[in-house]
């Protein structure tokens, strides 16, 4: 299947669907084909990808030691009450 030529507007419109991996392989390939050839859209896509990665990184925060301890205590309690298989 050859890529379908998209306009910049069409690419920008579907950019987040592309970054969110919501597009089917053909649609994603069409976007990628355009991004490889269009500096403006590529720059925009890279910006959104970068920001998206930073948002994703906010989902990692050092778990407090008291939470780790709380979980150990909870598991101990289950162990004590006997593991029934």
């Amino acid at each position, binding site marked *: 299947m050859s890529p379908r030529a998209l306009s910049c507007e069409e690419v920008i419109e579907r950019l*987040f669907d592309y970054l969110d991996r919501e597009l089917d392989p053909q649609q994603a390939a069409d976007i990628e084909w355009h991004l490889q050839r269009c500096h403006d859209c590529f720059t925009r896509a890279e910006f*959104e990808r*970068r*920001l*998206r990665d930073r*948002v994703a990184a906010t*989902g990692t925060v050092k*778990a407090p030691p008291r939470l780790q301890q709380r979980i150990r205590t*909870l598991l101990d309690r289950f162990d004590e009450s006997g*593991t029934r298989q």
Partner: protein
Amino acid sequence: MSLAGSLDHPRPQPHVHYRDATGANMRFDEAASRREWFEQRLAPLMDRLYGTALRLTRNPADAEDIVAEAVTKAWTQLDRLRDAQCFEGWLFHILTNTFVSEWRRRRCRPQPGGDDATEPSELDSASFTLFQQLHQPFLLWWGSLEDQFFNGLLQEDLERALDALPDAYRVTIVLVEVQGYTYEEVARLLGVPLGTVRSRLNRARCRLQKALWEHAREAGMVYHEGDGGTQR
């Protein structure tokens, strides 16, 4: 807040797609090895479980509660996990479900003074983009401000901007961008139509970018009209 986890908690890849796969039932011969197996897999996921819970709840105490509850559920239901390879996705799915059921339960109760429970739809034009702000022609004299923006942007700035989003927006963007759920999975999890997921996501992104732009200007991270060119 530091991103650097301790050495015994290596940071996993941020984007993981959780898809259930079938596999052989796991067998544990002894209770001790079962516990050991569980804790070994749990340990490297703790910072991500807690961070995800914190983004979903906005509140450290609530985040700790849902992580503890999810881990307990996982431990008691470990026999139901068919494929050890799916442990991570399975555990995060339990965490998400734990949060969502609690969240929906709370939203059913009248919220004192909060408009968070209602669908935030008014006044949200989904047209603002941070990219365009950073690429205005008059700014190009100073080159691209992207690097300046990203270098100046701290994790706590982003956390604050995310936490300031209305509940429905925040939860949607966290499920998609932090947890990697598909739109359809989010629709199913939250019990809303697919179109609602899409519009919440658009608006969440628009509001988030607006907030980050305002923050960048206030913090002097980017030059803007009226600064008299004092910034680079």
